């Protein structure tokens, strides 16, 4: 190959690359769509597609003996889910647990986050952040089983409470709320901590200069500024609790939540369509919650 040919080729190549880049430069939309194609495809295939498949499956039925899914359209599953008292009771119980877990977590998280963001020195703050993140490194199952041991009738809690005449709650809904609140606490502390860091100290000083006591400052200055963080935190604890079925299996005694109904429908009954119908309940609930939150504008300022 002669020198001139090589030069000519690289000129062609350069001009091709040049043309591509100039086209992309001129067409902002093309540039953007190329950039987004891969992640969007991923999102659509893995997420939207799976949700739609779930939705569609809920309308099918199962042959009770051979456990084969039959693709006949029927509203029976959804009708059962909406009219059967079992599903109503369990849905209400699950939502109740999710709300209580969220409330407990928020009440616990606020003072801790406030201390970290406004009072603790830099060194202590760093150590506290690590301490809060540390439990996330341990397996979820290990933590749930640890609570099983703690809440047992010859467990740590009983031993601690016996001198003051209180008994351990044992396994049941209280145990589920305690365990879930513990499990999701880091997810609640972190957004609130970040939110509090953004609240400027000058605002707190101004409030106290104007004669507001500490509690009034928190109620009328800090909390309103913190609403987006509280909403973000509540989304975590609420949705994580809504979908859980393992904790309730370990410490819940004889009670069941929505996740358990999905689990038995898949695992024991082999009824995927029914499981899909039940799984729609938390999805609809979360969808409603997110829409309500969006209206308040909290999502934009996350």
């Amino acid at each position, binding site marked *: 190959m002669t020198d001139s040919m090589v030069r000519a080729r690289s000129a062609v190549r350069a001009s091709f690359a040049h043309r591509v880049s100039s086209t992309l430069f001129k067409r902002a939309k093309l540039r953007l769509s190329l950039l987004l194609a891969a992640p969007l495809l991923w999102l*659509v295939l893995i997420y*939207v*597609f799976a949700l*739609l*498949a779930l*939705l*569609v*499956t809920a309308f099918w039925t*199962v042959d*009770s*003996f*051979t*456990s*084969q*899914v039959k*693709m006949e359209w029927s509203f029976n599953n959804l009708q059962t889910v909406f009219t059967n008292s*079992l599903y109503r*009771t*369990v849905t209400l119980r699950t939502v109740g647990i999710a709300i209580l877990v969220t409330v407990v977590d928020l009440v616990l998280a606020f003072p801790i986050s406030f201390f970290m963001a406004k009072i603790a020195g830099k060194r202590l703050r760093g150590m506290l952040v690590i301490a809060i993140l540390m439990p996330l490194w341990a397996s979820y199952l290990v933590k749930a089983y640890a609570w*099983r*041991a703690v809440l*047992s*009738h*010859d*467990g740590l809690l009983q031993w601690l409470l016996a001198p003051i005449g209180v008994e351990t709650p*044992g*396994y049941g809904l209280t145990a589920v709320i305690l365990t879930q609140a513990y499990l999701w606490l880091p997810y609640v502390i972190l957004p609130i901590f970040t939110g509090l860091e953004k609240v400027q100290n000058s605002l707190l000083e101004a409030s106290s200069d104007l004669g507001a006591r500490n509690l009034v400052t928190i109620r009328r200055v800090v909390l309103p500024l913190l609403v987006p963080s509280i909403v973000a935190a509540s989304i975590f604890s609420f949705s994580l609790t809504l979908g859980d079925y393992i904790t309730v299996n*370990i410490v*819940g*005694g*004889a*009670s*069941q939540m929505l996740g358990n*109904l999905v689990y*038995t*429908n898949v*695992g*024991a*009954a*082999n*009824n*995927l369509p029914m499981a899909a119908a039940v799984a729609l309940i938390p999805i609809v609930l979360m969808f409603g919650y997110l829409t309500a939150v969006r209206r308040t504008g909290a999502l934009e300022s996350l």
Partner: protein
Amino acid sequence: MKLTATKLSALFIGAAMALSACATASPQATTASSLTKLGKSEGKLSLLGWPGYAEDGSNDPKVDWVTPFEKATGCQVTFKSYGTSDEALNLFKTGNYDAIAASGDATLRLIASGAVQPLNTSLIPSYKGVYSFLKNRAWNTVDGKTYGVPHGYGANLLMYKKDVVKPAPTSWSVVFDGSSAYKGHVTAYDSPIYIADAAVYLMAHKPALGIKNPYALDDKQLQAAVDLLKSQRANVGEYWSDYLKEISAFESGDSVVGTTWQVIVNSMSAKANVGSVLPSEGATGWSDSWMVASNTKHVNCAYQWLDYIDSPKANAAATEYFGEAPVTADACQYGSAGFCDSYHAGDAKYAAKIWYWTTPIAKCLDGRTDVQCTDYSAWTTAWQEIKG
């Protein structure tokens, strides 16, 4: 071309349907006739079974009865374990397995769907030594054809803490009508099949209901069992399906009375101070069978495995490791001392009190033709309602 949102979503739903259709469609199995003559080993065998049913030493170097089989027959074994009978059915349907060890709540469904083939037991020499009360039973034989050879069997017993439950119970009534005495500390097995335990109790205590077989319940009988279980539910501390969970609950005293397996009783510490009994009403239990896939390419290896697992030494190793009774009296000399006694192996009177797990189906298993019985899916719905 511009796609509107509606068109786009229609496209997605269509595609989603197509995808799920692929996922759920499965080939129809054909009914095969049984083998007449054993041929050469194919060199490969793929097994499916409960955990601990085919150990090759990879979990515990001391526990290995697969390697001797491989050396003797030249069949290289791969083993996959499952957690529930329903999971087993789904795995077996993939067609990747030559043989399966299934409990009675799965065997009938396997036979009905044509997934397993009838066996020629004359090609399985060690089948002769199997206890006769395990042969030709509803869960391994249909229309006179044998589809499975036994692996091991056991009963769901009543376990109680000796220092709390006094006097020592001899009847299931302590977890049913009398369960309020131990409110919050009663435990029960967490599966729809537990409804049969209530039915066994009702057979003895409410003869007017006319239950002849705890797995053949008509609507009225199922309702009676459900009512009994709902009243029990008020006193249940927790349900168990993971046997480690039951052990921890009895060790800590959170559970004091409820159903158990022999292997759990054997694993309890002396400190826990538990006793166990096969109550006077009888009990539910399991009798697992090895079955051969109808479309297997390794039928000779599969037959040799069936023969091997029923041979005394291998059967002793497998059943003692899992914690159940062996299927042949000759196995007793190979187990550790007291092995056969602790599982009541070969005790026909004990075995007669066991109602082995069977899939409840619409056609009544007790022979009644004037009513429809409730099937397993009805039991599952009922079980969810019982737990509430």
